[in-house]
């Protein structure tokens, strides 16, 4: 199943398109938390303090545990309305 990672708005400009992380990688790299996912995708890029995170469309923080099949999204402060 793996993990699906999404980036929105200016975060996509920084990080590139959505990506799927395969089950083997998750195990091999021991990706257990949102922070682990970011570090794996970011290749050294810093995550600024105001970046918002959702797992399966609910807001979470970086220490939040992830599991196979989750959708993890990173995005900048929202500017709708």
């Amino acid at each position, binding site marked *: 199943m793996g993990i699906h990672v999404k980036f929105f708005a200016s975060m996509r400009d920084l990080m590139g398109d959505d990506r799927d992380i395969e089950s083997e990688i998750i195990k091999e790299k021991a990706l257990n938390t949102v922070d682990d996912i970011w570090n794996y995708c970011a290749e050294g890029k810093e995550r600024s303090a105001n970046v918002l995170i*959702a797992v399966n*469309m609910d807001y979470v923080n970086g220490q939040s545990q992830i599991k196979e099949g989750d959708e993890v*999204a990173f995005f900048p*402060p*929202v500017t*709708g309305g």
Partner: protein
Amino acid sequence: MKIIIDSSPFDPWRILDEYQKNMPKLDGQYGATAVFVGTMRDFNEGDNVSEMFLEHYPGMTERHLENICQQATGEYQLLESLVVHRVGVIKPNDPIVLVAVWTAHRKQAFEACREIMEDLKSKAPFWKKEQLNGGKDRWVDKNTKGY
């Protein structure tokens, strides 16, 4: 309760008219309706803006707006609520967002409408990219506070 995410221009007054006509169960019950409409201006932070692109997170947006309305319904005894939000390419003078609530009393209507709007502004996953006169574009980096 209804949430609409719309990539075509919408007319807030016509939507309100139609929505209200289709809630006959509320006849005689509601004494107060509070409405907010956000409209695209042609300037922001000192620059002229010719057009805007509104991105959203499909699925999470609807879900989050539903949660907001559900919570307000309990907290303010809403009889009905309606949220409409544009996405995609938007031109100056286009309505961007409509929030409307129906209650028995005005205090609840005013407070619920404002709270839904503030929550939407601070937490619903939408992002604006402005196209400036001259061709440059830029992501809007944050919303101003509403209280």
